[in-house]
């Protein structure tokens, strides 16, 4: 709707700045891959998403404030790209059992009371806004405040999303009852798109008040 007027002059970045930016971007790529894979479940699509994110970040580097968190900044870009792609139905967010089996082989030498593949599948059945909140806080190690900034919502909203995500996962995993959320089912798919619209309303900008 807003066709961004280009009046705000951003400082030209020197070659040195660009090198620093690229170094930091390189460092966060593994984190982008981990976040993306948690969001969309399919490693190949997750990696596509990360590449898209890297290109967008590079193109927007003037807007990155040196000294702030590159990881948080790029996560916002990745998240917005994911939401856009999801609404275009590029990612169906489905779960590929074989790929997951291969990817999620637990590191050796540790007894695993819960299969990581079950955990991953359970994670993918969560509504997207709860899934991303849990990923950011529970896996990515972001504070509630940082996660709220990334998602463009209030801290309280993040806390409640994480709390609900945890409760849902706990009960699923304890009962061993992980529903299949089939995306072949048009009703389920519609519901997911509606949820995405809600999530996208936050748009990952500043901490706007969302419920």
């Amino acid at each position, binding site marked *: 709707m807003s066709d961004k007027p280009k009046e705000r002059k951003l400082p030209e970045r020197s*070659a040195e700045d*660009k090198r620093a930016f*690229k170094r930091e*971007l*390189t460092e966060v*790529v*593994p*984190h982008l*891959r*981990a*976040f993306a*894979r*948690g969001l969309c479940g399919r490693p190949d699509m997750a*990696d596509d998403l*990360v*590449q898209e994110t*890297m*290109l967008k970040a*590079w193109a927007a580097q003037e807007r990155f404030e040196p000294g702030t968190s590159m990881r948080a900044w790029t996560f916002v870009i990745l998240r917005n790209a994911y939401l856009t792609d999801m609404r275009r139905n590029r990612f169906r967010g489905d779960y590929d059992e074989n790929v997951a089996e291969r990817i*999620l082989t*637990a*590191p050796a030498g540790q007894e*695993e*009371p*819960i299969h*990581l593949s079950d*955990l*991953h599948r359970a*994670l993918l059945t969560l509504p997207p806004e709860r899934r991303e909140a*849990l*990923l950011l*806080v*529970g*896996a*990515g*190690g972001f504070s509630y405040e940082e996660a709220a900034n990334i998602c463009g919502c209030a801290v309280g909203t993040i806390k409640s999303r994480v709390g609900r995500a*945890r409760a849902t*996962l*706990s009960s699923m*995993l304890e009962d061993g009852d992980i529903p299949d959320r089939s995306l072949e089912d048009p009703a389920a798919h519609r519901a997911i798109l509606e949820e995405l619209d809600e999530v996208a309303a936050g748009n990952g900008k500043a901490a706007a008040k969302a419920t």
Partner: protein
Amino acid sequence: MSSGEEQVPPPNLPKGSAAKPGDPEWASGLKRLYDSVVDEPLPDTFKDLLSKLDDSGEK
């Protein structure tokens, strides 16, 4: 009698460590899912992309 209390993580716990006492047992698995991807060697496609960024960003 204070079993409902939220446990305060010990101060020496590194920031970003998601596992706290009282977390459900799957919580460390979630962290491990994430870390296992972080620790994967970076596929060449990413290295290629990063080196291309250099070219296109040249002034």
